[in-house]
Structure formats: structure tokens, C-alpha cells
């Protein structure tokens, strides 16, 4: 039997990065292949090449034996490829129906036939057991529902090959289980499934075969029958995984960061944080674990004065922090490693030295009255580049020229080099290479040992479990449990994250 999808020797480079190097993979009909790898291993780039969203530099991609031309999305769709994207490709201001029919619309004459479209969406929803309201506007729907729309959109045209790019990142464990069941059903009906993830549990549960990518290359190919999670993790990272970070015991003191009855809305004006209470003591790391979308982002932004609080207060060493004044909060000793470093953390066209003083450019010694002290800027930059191991040709290099890991180190260096009482780190290692991850982890521990109260928010449970002294589990906008690191066992935390009682 010839393979449904055959990728042969595909190579793709982006400026400065080799995303894929000589990758060959095949998927047969009725088979679930998991594509496993760390962030930045090149998984997304590879499947985007299959779907025509990226043009590979070399290599061939064949579907049902037919060579597809690079960059031809509609060609891929016509050959029966459907894709569920990691970042939802939905128009927020349009209805579910409009989103699903986009690209191949039912027509009556030259006009859209919305009645037929609506009926089609309902039928589709019934067929796959994925419930959606065809008339709802996408922007009003929860992420889990949006995911269902994405899947329906991909399944609409009888697909032979379904690609799912990290579909479970925003799902609760139950929703994840449902999705895995959908994948099994599809495979049973003869569809080939190529499924990207970095979660080992899912791979073990659903995959027939596993292909592991590391640094843009195939690091190994195996099946859940032949290996276990430990073995997969080793393949992913390429060495014995030391998920346990070296750190001494915490010596916590008085509570520095106190959050009382905090209520915060999300962008759609729905309550995202509802009556949250949390204390972080000086000299400890509190990790916030939770499925993404349970209010973590809103919590961090409200603490740092970037999102209006509806009610409740945030105290730093007993002093109330102001609402919607990130800079004032910062000057009270709250360092913040923001989730979106390109948007808030850096000015990418500024040099490293300017970025390193971005929120203190007008303070001594970097400025006297209104004159900037260029010498002090340069000394500061030279020192921090050395201390935080920022790999850059020069301190005058613009931030945009750095790799993701080094950009993040610039932010970390700026935030942790200041006199800080509280550190709020949101997804501090997202999109960062392994070496930098280790370094950033050590810096967070160093900040703790220097007496800062560290609040770590991360979607990576492993990161929380290895760094945190206490684990706060967040669900539905509240902290549902606070566990000591010793009692925070994976299964327990997982159940709590799903909103189940321990």
C-alpha cells in the first residue's frame, strides 16, 4: 500500500535558522502519526509545508503519490488535506457558519446560499459529534468551542489527511480526551492523521507511530508499544532529561506579594479572574499551574498594572499597587517578564543597550535631569550581556537581530538586574532554546535566593513542578488548591487543573 502522505528530504531555512533539515516522513491511510518535539524543533514548519503555507527550499511532498507544488494551499485542500492550526484561523467578527464555509461557499446563482450553508454546518456538527451554534459569532465563543470550529472547518471537505498542529494546548483534559477520541474515530474510518504535540501522555494514548523532531531533524521514529514516556523524552531532548532543577530549599519569610479578592475581565469583557486570593512570600517560588485560558494571563496583567481590575487589591510589602500603571507598579519593586516580549518587553528596532534600560531610562545613573548618560548605558549593557550570557555581536546590535532565547535573556537581564522585591514571570521560557531555558530557570532561583517573591506562571506543568516551592492550581479564574512542592504529584495537579476535586 502506498503512503497517503510522503515527505522526502524536505529542507527549509529561515534567516538565521534551519527549521527543517532533510526530513522524511510518511503517513498511511487510517494511521495516526504523532510528530513530537520541543518548541522550535521545526514541527509546525514541516506541516505548514505540507499545507502549502510554507515553501520548502528543497525536497518533495507527495499526497497519494501526487507531487504537490510548494506554497499551494488550495492545491493541498483539493487533494484532501485538512489542517487544524495552532493559532486559530478564524475571523472573530464573523459567524461560525461564515467561518466554516469560507473558501468554498454554497451558492445560489452568484449569491451566497446561507440557508444551505447553515444546514451543512449543522449536519457536519452532527456527523462528528462536535456541537456548535452556527449563528454565534466566533469572538463570543470559548477557546474550546473555537477549536471545534477549526476541526469542523478542516473536516468539511472529505479529508484523507488531517493535520492537527498542537490542538490540545488550550484544552482541558476532558476536552483533550474527547479530541483524542475524534482522532481515533477518524483513523478508523480511513483518514490519516498527522498530529503535532509536545505532550507525551497524548502520544502514548493515541499514536500508532511517533516521529520525534529535534533541532529541525528527525531524531528518531518509534511507536508507543516499543517505548515509554521516559524514552520519548530522551529522544526529544537528546540527552538524559534532567527535569529536576538543582536548587536548595526555600527559606520563605513574610508575604511580599498579596492578592486579595481580585476580579478581572478578559478582552471580551467576560470575568476571567473571579475573586482570587494568593500570597507569595519573600524567598519562595510559587508556580501557577493551569490549563491555558483559565485566567492566568489576566491575573498576571492585573498584578502588573496592565489590565484594569474590577475589584480587589494587589499589595506589595503591604502597599497597594496602582491599577493600569505598569511603570508605577514596576517602580514599587515588581519585575515582570511578560508573556508577549515583542509587544511589551522589547522595542525590536532599539539596540540592546537601550532595551536594557527601557523602563528606567530616566533614572539615575542612566539620566541626569533630562540628559541621558550614554557611558552609564554602555557600562550597564556590557555588564549584563556578560552576566546573563546574551549572545550578541555587540551591545549596539538591535534586538530584532537576536534569537528568541537571547531576546528573552535581554528581558530577564533587565528585570532581574534591578532591585526587585517581586518577580512575575509569565511563560518565561516559551519559544526559547533548551540552553537558555536552563539559564533562565537558574536566574529565577537566584532571584528567589536573593529574597524576592517569585510568581511563575507557565503552561508547562514540568516547568512548574521542577521550579516551584509551592504550586497554586488555577481553574476558572480562581486558585483551587495550593500544594507544597513535595505533595504536588503530577496526577493530582492534573486532576485539579481539570477542575476535579483532589
Amino acid at each position, binding site marked *: 500500500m502506498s503512503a497517503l502522505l510522503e515527505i522526502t528530504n524536505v529542507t527549509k531555512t*529561515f534567516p538565521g*535558522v534551519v*527549521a527543517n533539515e532533510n526530513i522524511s516522513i510518511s503517513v498511511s491511510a487510517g494511521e495516526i502519526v504523532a510528530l513530537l518535539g520541543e518548541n522550535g524543533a521545526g514541527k509546525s*514548519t514541516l506541516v*505548514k509545508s505540507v*499545507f502549502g*503555507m*510554507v*515553501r520548502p527550499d528543497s525536497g518533495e511532498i507527495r499526497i497519494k503519490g501526487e507531487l504537490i507544488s510548494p*506554497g499551494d*494551499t*488550495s492545491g493541498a*485542500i*483539493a487533494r484532501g488535506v485538512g*489542517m487544524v*492550526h495552532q*493559532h486559530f*484561523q*478564524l*475571523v*472573530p*467578527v*464573523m459567524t461560525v457558519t*461564515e*467561518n466554516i*464555509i*469560507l*473558501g*468554498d*461557499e454554497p*451558492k445560489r446563482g*452568484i*449569491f*451566497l446560499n446561507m440557508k444551505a450553508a447553515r444546514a451543512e454546518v449543522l449536519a457536519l456538527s452532527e456527523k462528528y459529534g462536535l456541537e456548535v451554534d452556527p449563528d454565534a459569532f466566533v469572538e463570543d465563543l470559548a477557546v474550546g468551542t473555537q477549536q471545534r470550529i477549526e476541526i469542523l*472547518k478542516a473536516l468539511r471537505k472529505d479529508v484523507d489527511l488531517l493535520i492537527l498542529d498542537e490542538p490540545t494546548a488550550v484544552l482541558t483534559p476532558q476536552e483533550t480526551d474527547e479530541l483524542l477520541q475524534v482522532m481515533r474515530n477518524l483513523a478508523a474510518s480511513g483518514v490519516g492523521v498527522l498530529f503535532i504535540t509536545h505532550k507525551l501522555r497524548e502520544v502514548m494514548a493515541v499514536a500508532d507511530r511517533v516521529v520525534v523532531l529535534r533541532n529541525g531533524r528527525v531524531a528518531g521514529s518509534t511507536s508507543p508499544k516499543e517505548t515509554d514516556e521516559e524514552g520519548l523524552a530522551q529522544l526529544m531532548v537528546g540527552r538524559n532529561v534532567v527535569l529536576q532543577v538543582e536548587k536548595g530549599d526555600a527559606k520563605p519569610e513574610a508575604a511580599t506579594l498579596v492578592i486579595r479578592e481580585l476580579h478581572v475581565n478578559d478582552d471580551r469583557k467576560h470575568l476571567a479572574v473571579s475573586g482570587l486570593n494568593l500570597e507569595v512570600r519573600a524567598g519562595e517560588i510559587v508556580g501557577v499551574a493551569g490549563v491555558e485560558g483559565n485566567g492566568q494571563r489576566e491575573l498576571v496583567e492585573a498584578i502588573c498594572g496592565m489590565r484594569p481590575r474590577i475589584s480587589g487589591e494587589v499589595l506589595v510589602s503591604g502597599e497597594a499597587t496602582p491599577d493600569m500603571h505598569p511603570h508605577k507598579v514596576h517602580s514599587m519593586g515588581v519585575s515582570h517578564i511578560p508573556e508577549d516580549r515583542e509587544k511589551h518587553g522589547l522595542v525590536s528596532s532599539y539596540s540592546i543597550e537601550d532595551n536594557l534600560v527601557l523602563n528606567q531610562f530616566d533614572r539615575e545613573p542612566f539620566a541626569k535631569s533630562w540628559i541621558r548618560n550614554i557611558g552609564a548605558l554602555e557600562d550597564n549593557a556590557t555588564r549584563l550581556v556578560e552576566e546573563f550570557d546574551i549572545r550578541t555581536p555587540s551591545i549596539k546590535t538591535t534586538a530584532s537581530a537576536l534569537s528568541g532565547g537571547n531576546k528573552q535573556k535581554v528581558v530577564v537581564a533587565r528585570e532581574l538586574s534591578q532591585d526587585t522585591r517581586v518577580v512575575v514571570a509569565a511563560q518565561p521560557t516559551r519559544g526559547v532554546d533548551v540552553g537558555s531555558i536552563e539559564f533562565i530557570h537558574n536566574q529565577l532561583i537566584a532571584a528567589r535566593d536573593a529574597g524576592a517573591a517569585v510568581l511563575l506562571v507557565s503552561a508547562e506543568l514540568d516547568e512548574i513542578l521542577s521550579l516551584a516551592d509551592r504550586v497554586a492550581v488555577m481553574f476558572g479564574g480562581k486558585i483551587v488548591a495550593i500544594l507544597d512542592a513535595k505533595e504536588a504529584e503530577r496526577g493530582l495537579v492534573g486532576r485539579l487543573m481539570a477542575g476535579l476535586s483532589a
Partner: protein
Amino acid sequence: MKRFLTFKWILTLILIAITGYLYSRDGVITTSVVATALIFGLPLALAAMVGIMCERTGIVNIGIEGTLLFSSFIGFFVASTTNNGVFGIFSAILAGVVTGLFLAFMSISWKMDQIIAGTIINILATGLTSFLYKQGHTAPTTSPIDIPFFSNIPFFGQVLFMNGPLVYFGLVVIFALYVALYHTSWGLRSRAVGEHPGSADTAGVSVFRLRYLNVALAGAVGGLAGAYLSLELVGSWDRGFTAGKGFTALALMIFGRWNPMGALAAAMFFGLAQAITNQLMFADVAHIPEQFVNMLPYVLTIVVLAISAGKVRPPAAEGQQYEKEQA
């Protein structure tokens, strides 16, 4: 949304009531003012359509002024040289398409900042037309066509059915655009590209092609507006004669919430304001210096924007380059 709808209807009813009252007081003047409002408002409405077509697919077009200037000039120039008005109209539309393609080329293919690209069109159009312009030429202009039967209806006959051919054509274009935007797959795809290009791209719609197409089509509509200005409304051409209409159109587009009907209504309101001022001056009711009359549309534009800005939501992908490949 509901509140806005009722507001719209109440306003419409008030306007109809006022017009009805004025018509009962002086039918001739009221009819002529409303008829003038239409012919003054139409070029603004058409120019606003240019903006809507571009921005709905995510391209900011501040070169509308240049499109109007260039196409009205070319239309007049060709009509005058060939002594054929129809040639003139087609050349104007073609000239509009050329400016549209030029904008598309700069902002889509070259990924230039769209506002700078639009400014270049404006400056080039000003330079080119004033360089090529020679005084003292005349061109054949269109003449009004009375639509049988309908033109005999009191009031509506004179307002709607005794106009030049380009008025009819322009109105048809605006209504067709409205229907197409909300009820055809072209419209659905265009709106998707303007809000979230990735969603269209992953559904197999070429963002690049659709943006090119729409900006070029928008240029054609701009060319029609230009032809209307020089060959039907004014009947001549002079340097800088579009007088900021292309910019006012952007304000109307925003005020009309990127909806063709909204922009048409806003343009008619502007046309009415001008028609009333003209009538007052003509009747010598008020002594308004010419400069202040000329200022009116600009002041209105700022007022309109001050009312509507901040409350409206522009197409989300407006002004952004779409990069297909991201690491």
C-alpha cells in the same frame, strides 16, 4: 446594535418629516436642494466606496484624492482630445485602475508603508496633472437623461430620475457593491481577508490576488468618480480641483462604519449641507464669505470623525502586511 438601528430609523423619519414640511412650504426650492445634494454627495460616496473596497481587504488607501485628480484629468483630457465623452469616461476609469494597481504594487508587492504609498500617489497625481494641464480646453460633457414616466413623479422625479448617466451608474455601483459585500462569496472572502488574512489563506483563498483585485476594482470606482466630476458635474478641469474630496471620503467611510450604505448616507448628508449653503448664498439670505463656504466640508469632516472615531471598529488587519511564511 439594536440601539443604533432605532437611532438610524428615528433620524430618517425626522429627515423625511422635515423634507415633507419644507416641500409643502416651497416645493421648487426644496426639490432643487435635495437634487443638488445628490449630485454633490455622489462623488464623495463613490470615493468612499474606493476606501471601503480597499480597507475591507486590509489595504489603507489615502491615495483616493490622487485617484480622483488623475482620473478626472485623464477623462477630461481624452474627452477633449477625441471630442468623445464616452472615450473620456472609459479612460478615466482606466486611469483609476492604474492608480489602484500602483497602490497595490507599492503596498502589497513592495510591502511599503501604505500611508506613504498613498501619499506618493497623491503627490505624483498632483505633479503629473499640473504639469500636463493646459488652459482653455473644453470637452463634451454628459447630458441629463430623463427616465420616462418616473421623471414625472413629483419631487422624486426631479431628484432621482432626471440626472446625468453617471449618476445612475454611480448609484447602481454603490448598491451593487453593498449587495456583493454581504451576499456573495467575493464579499465574504474580502471581509475575511481584511479581518484575518490567515483565515482566508488557510481556506485556500489567495490573499495576494484578492487584495490586488479589490484595490484595482476600487481604482475603477475612483475613476468613475473622477469622470463624474470632470465630465458631468463640473464640465471642466483645473489644477487641484478635487479639493480634498478623497480625504473627506475616508472620513465618510469611517462614519459609515465601512458599510456602503452608511457611507452613502454620510455622503448625502455632506451633499445636503453644501446644497443648503449654496441655496442660502444664491438666495442672498446670508452673506457668507466664499472662504467659509469652502471650509464647510473640512470642518464637517473633523466633526464627523470626532463623533464617530473611537466608537467604530475598523477591519482588524488594516494596514498590515500579510506574511505567509512565519517561522
